[in-house]
Each structure stands twice: as C-alpha cells, then as structure tokens.
C-alpha cells in the first residue's frame, strides 16, 4: 500500500476572474437558415469565449431561432452542428450588450463522411448484423471514418486487426497503450471481419453505398443548455464522472494515473496523482465510485487493484493484488464500495479470470469468486452494484446475464437476460432496490427486479446506439448515453416516451451521472475521447 497525493495542475483561475470581474451580461440570439431548408430546427449553436475552456451550446427551435443568455461580453468563436451542413460566414463574433439578432447561414458540407457518427456509419455500411457486430469493439478507441478511409484489402486489414489486439482497452487516439499480453483472438473471426471491412472501405476506390444520416433533434430534444468544459490536456480521458454534495465534479482518467476534479462554477480544474504501482503496464483507471463517507475509489485497470482517495486528507491508498493473484493480464475495471460500511468489504472484478473479487479493507486481502468457472462460453463480470446488505449484482458484459453474489454465503445466482447475447454493461440501483442496466450489444435498456427475479427490457429508440450505462433520476426517468451516436437518451419507463439530445461534438459516452438536487435534473458525462466534461441542463 502506498500513500501520498500530489497536487498536479491548477487552471481556470483566470477564467474565474474574468467571469466575476465583468458584471455586464450579454446575450447572443438569432436565427439559423439555409437555402435548402429555410429556417432550420435542431441546429446546435455553440459559443466559446476567447481564451476560455468553456463552450455553451443551445439548439434552434422549429422557427430556426436560438438564444444564448448570460454571456460575458467579448470575442467568441461560433460553431454549429447540423449533419450535412457547415457555417457559411464568420466563425468569430464580438458579443456586446444589447446587440441585435444574428442571421446564421448554413451551406452544404462538401465532406459529409467527416461528420458522420459511428451510428450513421453503421446505418450506411451494407452488410448483415452479424458482419457488423464485431465493429462495436472498434469504437472503444476510434470512429469508423478511420476504417472507411483505408484502402486495405482483406490481407492487409487482417494485419491491422492483429495489431489492434496488442492495444489496451484503455487506449485513446491521444494516448495509445500497449498491453503486456495481447488479447486472445480467433484467427478465423479476425479474417472474417477483415474481409468484411475490405468491402466497406476505399479498397475499390470509392464507397459503393450512400452515406445515411440521423435526423436532427426536434421538439423537446431542442430544449436544453449544454456546457462543455475542456480539460487542460488533450490526453485526459474522463471515464466515470460524479458530482459530490458540494457540487464539485470528480472523474476518473482512463489513460493516466490521475483523479480529476472540476469546479463547474469557475472552470477550475485540479488533478490528484496516484502512484504507478505496476511499471510497464498501461496506466489509468476505469470505474470511479464513492463510499458512504464520501471518499472515492478507483478501479486500477492494468495497474491492478483498487485505489481509495481520502477526500479530506487528499491522500491515496492503493490496495494491490497479492503476487499470486497478479499476472500480466490482471485487470480491475470496476469497484463497488457503496455499501462497504456494512461489512468492511469492497467489490471489484478480475477481467483476466472472468471473476469477481472482494477486498477486506482492514486487512487488504482479496477473495476470489468465480461464478463462471467451468461454465465455458464467454463471460466477463463488468458493471457492479451492491444492495443494502452489500450483496453484489454484476453484469456479465462478456455474455448475456446479470448475477448476484450473496455476501454471506458467497454463492452466485445467474439470471440470463430475456434477450440473448445482450452484453449487459453498467448498472445502478434505484431507491426500491431494482437494478437498472444497459444491454450494450442488444441496443436496449433494462431493469431487473431482485424480489420477483424478473426482467423488463426496452429498445433504445435509434438502432445502433449501443447504450453503455443508465441512471434513474428522482422523477423515475432514465438517462443513458450512446457510445456511437453522440446522443443522450432520456426515457420515461412509465409512458415509454423518449427524447434524444444531440451533443455538440463527437463524444464517446461512457458512465453517465444525473444530479437530482436541481430542478429540472442536471445530466453529466465525460467525453472519453474528447478531453472534456459535459453538462446537459434540460429546460423542462
């Protein structure tokens, strides 16, 4: 175990002074139109003050109008998002008090491919669902444009895919990390995928399929204010984001050994470094979860073990795996300390053994639980949540089930989901003890009732959106994010109605968080590939 935190970087003070120092509030309003459509609904208009790390975004209503209020007067960079279009005209503007409305004109984008989300690539590329299915692994690190623009034939593409198996899952384009041992793969599967990809890339000189796009937001989906906080380094990969009782935003960095903290009021950003305990292994943490005392725990990924951050002392305690449990493939992606006050135990997973582990915080000893031992097939316990007695519910991300481990007996019960090959990913428990989760590969959100041992599943409204996580807010509404469509799903299970908010930039969504202390609630998410943290405030 090692202690010691290092206060790393600190920025945003200048911005804070700017925000406070200039009292006069200006607003930016106007109308967006194009020759093709006239007034345009659902166009995202973003403004970012010069030298600021904060971008604010609203969507146009059905009359094409938008309004960004309470801006500090000054020079702003303007940008828009409307697939198929670009801003025609100045992209910088002086925002002053009492200025008249802007007329923003859009023109057709010459390079549509550069604007497509992965969902739109999935829609556009010909091929069967089975052929496309393995591509959901690719988007953990990059967009499909990268694949579609290659000119490789099947043989060359196979070599590329083989190289991909050597990278850690906690890799981004800004920080590629090599695994100590390569991922297991079956040659015939890789060859099949390579052959398919060579039919949808530029190996024949052009794309022999039209590029399809999703509709722009409309109606309620245009009624939100989005604030994006850029991180001070491009390599920062926010994975799990959580807001504490004081309104501070904490996040795990997927590729670097830092715990980050953002003050959304000022934009001030701080990082706390935790030690590299396994040199040569990829760095970074995945899950971030708090215990009853408000201290944060990180799952140490390939660094292995779990890490506790004492919020008051600002110090870390690393609970390393003992040598006999630690191997080159050892990986802890999840940690669940939320009910550790019950029995002094914190749950985690061991990806390399398809297993769960439980840490005794006092002794630092880990116990191993192998519910899938001798089961065969593909399994990988992933998202974790604990009930009031610290019994564990886990998602079998490798397969098609959720499981429960009894805290007292250690016995596991596995509940296969109604939809096969659903690959349940992250989870949360609501006030009634129901387990909500995302069925990543099935494109569904679902709930499991532990009392009745029954499931309910709902299709995500847009195909190929691959929900990663879910969060149920105080109103019983469910929030989820797509890893592929840059859209945030708000879903009411009582009515079956859903809204999909579009985010202003390419955003690889992972863990989602809803702050229910505000009305309406406030949604938070990290941009895993985009080095930013995003706040979405619905206006209704």
């Amino acid at each position, binding site marked *: 175990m090692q202690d010691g935190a290092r206060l790393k970087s600190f920025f945003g003070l200048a911005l804070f002074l700017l925000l406070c120092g200039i009292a006069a509030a200006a607003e930016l309003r106007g109308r967006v139109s194009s020759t093709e459509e006239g007034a345009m609904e659902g166009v995202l208009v973003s403004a970012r003050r010069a030298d600021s790390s904060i971008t604010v975004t609203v969507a146009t209503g059905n009359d094409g109008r938008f309004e960004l209020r309470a801006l500090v007067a000054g020079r702003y960079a303007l940008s828009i998002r409307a697939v198929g279009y670009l801003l025609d005209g100045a992209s910088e503007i002086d925002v002053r008090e009492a200025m008249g409305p802007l007329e923003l004109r859009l023109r057709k984008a010459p390079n549509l491919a550069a604007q497509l989300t992965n969902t739109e690539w999935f829609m556009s590329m010909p091929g069967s669902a089975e052929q496309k299915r393995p591509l959901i692994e690719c988007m953990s690190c990059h967009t499909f444009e990268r694949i579609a623009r290659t000119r490789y034939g099947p043989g060359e593409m196979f070599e590329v895919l083989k190289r991909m198996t050597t990278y850690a899952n906690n890799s981004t384009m800004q920080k590629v990390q090599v695994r100590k041992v390569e991922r297991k*793969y079956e040659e015939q599967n890789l060859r099949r995928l390579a052959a398919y990809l060579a039919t949808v890339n530029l190996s024949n000189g052009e794309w022999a399929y039209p590029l399809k796009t999703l509709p722009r937001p409309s109606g309620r989906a245009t009624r939100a204010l989005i604030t994006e906080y850029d991180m001070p380094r491009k390599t920062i990969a926010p994975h799990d984001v959580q807001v504490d009782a004081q309104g501070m935003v904490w996040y795990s960095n997927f590729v670097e050994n830092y715990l980050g903290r953002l003050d959304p009021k000022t934009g001030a950003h701080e990082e706390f470094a935790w030690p590299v305990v396994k040199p040569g292994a990829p760095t970074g943490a995945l899950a971030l979860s708090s215990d009853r005392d408000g201290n944060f725990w990180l799952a140490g990924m390939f660094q292995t073990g779990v890490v506790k951050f004492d919020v008051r002392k600002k110090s870390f305690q690393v609970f390393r795996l003992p040598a006999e449990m630690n191997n080159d493939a050892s990986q802890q992606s999840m940690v669940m300390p939320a009910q550790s006050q019950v029995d002094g135990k914190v749950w985690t997973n061991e990806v390399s053994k398809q297993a769960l582990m439980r840490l005794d915080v006092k002794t630092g000893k880990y116990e191993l639980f192998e519910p899938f031992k001798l089961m065969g097939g593909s399994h990988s316990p992933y998202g974790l949540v604990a009930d009031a007695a610290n019994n564990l519910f886990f998602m079998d991300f490798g397969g098609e089930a959720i499981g429960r481990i009894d805290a007292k007996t250690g016995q596991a019960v596995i509940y296969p989901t109604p939809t096969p090959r659903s690959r349940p990913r992250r989870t949360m428990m609501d006030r009634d003890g129901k387990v909500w989760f995302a069925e990543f590969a099935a494109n569904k959100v679902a709930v499991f009732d532990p009392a009745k041992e029954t499931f309910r599943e709902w299709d995500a409204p847009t195909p190929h959106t691959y929900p990663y996580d879910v969060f149920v807010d105080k109103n019983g509404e469910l929030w989820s994010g797509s890893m592929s469509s840059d859209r945030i799903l708000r879903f009411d299970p009582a009515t079956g109605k859903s809204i999909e908010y579009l985010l202003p930039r390419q955003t690889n969504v992972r863990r989602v968080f809803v702050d229910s202390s505000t009305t309406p609630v406030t949604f938070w998410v990290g941009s895993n590939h985009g080095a930013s943290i995003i706040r979405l405030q619905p206006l209704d």
Partner: protein
Amino acid sequence: MGGADEHPDEGLIFFGYVKDARGAPISGAKVTATMKSGNTFIVQTSATGLYRLPTFSYQINPAEVVIACAKEGYKQTRVIRRPIAKANPPKPVETECRMERG
C-alpha cells in the same frame, strides 16, 4: 474481438417446457438450474412455457445439473428429462417440469 460474439451457440444446451397437470404450458415460471458448485442459473419461461439456459461448457456433466421450476400458486410435481442419446459433443438436454395448482 471478444465477448459474446465468439461461438455463441457452441456447448451444452439445456432447454424445455414448464407445464401444468393437463399439459398446458405455464408462462412466467421460474426455472432454476443448480450446478455441482452450488451456483445457480435462473430463467423465466416464455408465453409458450419454453425456457432455454445459456450455453454451458462441455466440461459440465449434464447429469449433475439439477433442474427445478416454481411459480406462485403452483408446486412442482416432477421433472421429466428426455433420455440423452450418447453423442460427442453431447446433444441438447430437454426437460419438462410439471407443476400443479396448490
């Protein structure tokens, strides 16, 4: 490159029906498969009374998997297992779980 996408259907399969005394299918019944390790798998029957467990490894001895069914208002009377034809790899195991009111 991993996950459930490799060999989705290769391995030992348990499937079957839950029926009442007259042979009518019972939907929404809980079917429990208990392994030698003590770990259990729990699934619900469909509208036609059908259940199917996830695929197990061939290392599992089918004779050591205990199938039971339950539903509120019913009690289990017996579990019929169709004779398993010797085959390599083993054939799917079909069971019929009978319940009656009470």
